[in-house]
């Protein structure tokens, strides 16, 4: 048996430290989310009221069903707001530590930039930039490996979707120059 054994060890040198200070507690985030949902419920409820949330000759008006749903959502988030304000135990738990937040931002910001790039440069160029950039700067992987991986993956996606399966992706100036 042992001759087929392969040891797999993966290290994570940039792992978030365990003793990093908390940025926000669960209670605070809970309250903020509840407030946001309450605001959403009021906005949507008002819009549905305007559309018509009563009954007419043919039955309920278009706004009827969603209007009462916004009432339920508003009620539940109001309750959530109070629950977050009065529960001590859960509220003090850490939502995210500074080290964790740094790692989350390290992936979230590139993702936002990727979406922006997709809008202007097309999806394939954007994905090449995202993968190579992320591997190089966040993962600290060698330049040639990053570029090669990004190129192979992007090319594979292009062949799979645009050519083999006819699922057309947004394109930019580079594809236009190449004639696609």
């Amino acid at each position, binding site marked *: 048996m042992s001759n087929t054994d392969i040891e797999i060890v993966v290290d994570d040198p940039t792992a978030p430290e365990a003793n990093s200070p908390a940025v926000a507690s669960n209670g605070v985030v809970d309250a903020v989310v509840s407030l946001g949902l309450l605001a959403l419920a009021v906005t949507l409820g008002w819009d549905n009221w305007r559309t018509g949330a009563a009954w007419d000759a043919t039955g309920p008006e278009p706004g009827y069903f969603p209007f009462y749903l916004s009432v339920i959502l508003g009620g539940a988030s109001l309750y959530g707001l109070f629950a977050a304000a009065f529960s001590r135990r859960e509220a003090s738990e850490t939502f995210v530590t500074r080290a964790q937040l740094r790692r989350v931002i390290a992936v979230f910001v590139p993702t936002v930039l990727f*979406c922006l790039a997709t809008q202007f440069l097309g999806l394939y160029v954007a994905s090449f930039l995202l993968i190579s950039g992320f591997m190089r700067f966040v993962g600290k992987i060698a330049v040639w490996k990053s570029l090669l991986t990004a190129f192979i993956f992007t090319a594979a996606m292009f062949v799979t979707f645009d050519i083999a399966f006819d699922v057309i992706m947004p394109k930019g100036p580079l594809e236009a120059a190449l004639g696609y």
Partner: protein
Amino acid sequence: MEAFGLLLHGFAVLLTWKTLLLMMVGLVLGIFVGVLPGLGGPNGVAILLPLTFTMDPTSAIVMLSCIYWGALFGGAITSILFNIPGEAWSVATTFDGYPMAQQGRAAEALTAAFTSSFIGSLVAVLLITFLAPMISSFALKFGPPEFFAVYLLTFCSFVGLGREAKHKTVTSMSLGLLLAGVGMDTVSGQLRMTFGSAELLRGINFLVAVIGLFGISEILLTMEERLALRGHAAGISLRVVLLVWKDLPKYWVTLFRSSFIGCWLGITPGGAIAASFMGYNLAKRFAKDQESFGKGRIEGVFAPETAAHASGTSALLPMLALGIPGSGTAAILLGGLMVWGLNPGPLLFVEHKDFVWGLIASMYLGNVVGLVLVLTTVPIFASILRVPFAAVAPMIVVSCAIGAYAIQNAMFDIWLMLGFGVVGYVFKKIGIPLAPFTLALVLGNRAEDAFRLSMIGSGGDMKVFWSNGLVGSITTLAIILLFWPLIDKAFSSVTRRLRPAKA
């Protein structure tokens, strides 16, 4: 026995080289997705869904369900070898699976896990084969009030039986139902909740939301964790497989019990996690030497894996028969059905026989092929974990974006996906469950239509939901389930008061 004939026909539909090839591709992709950190069943299916848009529905569903099986099998690999449960329902597998791997019995544990998943799914598929046609032919008699009552039952059972804080389940569900209503109203054609935006006119697409909620948010969550791991990838030799299989009949009670629990909990929404823990705990309680559990006992792998897979599979039963998904993944498959232009619900069994029986047959075949595939290729897949997450993460982001864009060819959807990614990340961290949201979003329009049609039919009289025995009992059951925690509490306080009186 009509079901049997139709099932054979289903096999005949499947046994072409093209379908078998798709099956293999689906399984490999699924195992891949299941092994990767931060991805699992629902995410995998959601991300890979766009690949199937241009296929015919039968090939598409075969591939998707194979991705799902593959992901389930893949989850077991990481739980046993690295003590990393890919999904919440694999947690119970790590209790005994990982100790076994540390003792050098990884091959045995893996074989046990794969075999028991196979058995669990097989039992559930058998149940689907014989029960689904019956339920759907019964449901053909349903009118709008009955359908609304069934939807209500689904929603209420989530609130009443879910383990999360009740107001959070209600929040997530009503938000899902509301977002489902954005865009053109299907009955009157009027616009709702669009605030003059042309992009919102199309409505919020279910699959876009799912890709964001499960794909993007999972990446963000995974980044928070320490991603180091250490373990041995053991190859499985035929001798070990046969050895485990030889012992299998000894554990028939455990296997049977777990399959039963799994099937039962799978049909009620959100059951796979509960099923795996319950399977494990019951196996432990009925064992003669409870001490040996948690120290690498093979039964501790059999019990949760059988239950989890039985429940994951039987979650497809209500989806096929009634158009109501029993789990998050089933909801995504349901979303897929709609993309391919099929209307989920009891009529599926009448109008699209080929499709339904092809799907059921693919569950049998996919399981067999999957079992063979994982047993032979474990070391290869385990070494996927060596690929650094810094390379995997951006690829997943790109795949998510491709998926979100492909659904409606809209750039706006990529932004929407990003938004849902953040929402999913925050919701998961503060304990707002995502499954009710998913379910509400996919069922919202149909629940509303059913409600309005029954209201129009009855002239606005709510009594229509109690107008006959069937709809009345479903509605009443729904309301009982909604208030179940209160009823349960009242019940136990009454019995507590009675007991001292007796003594």
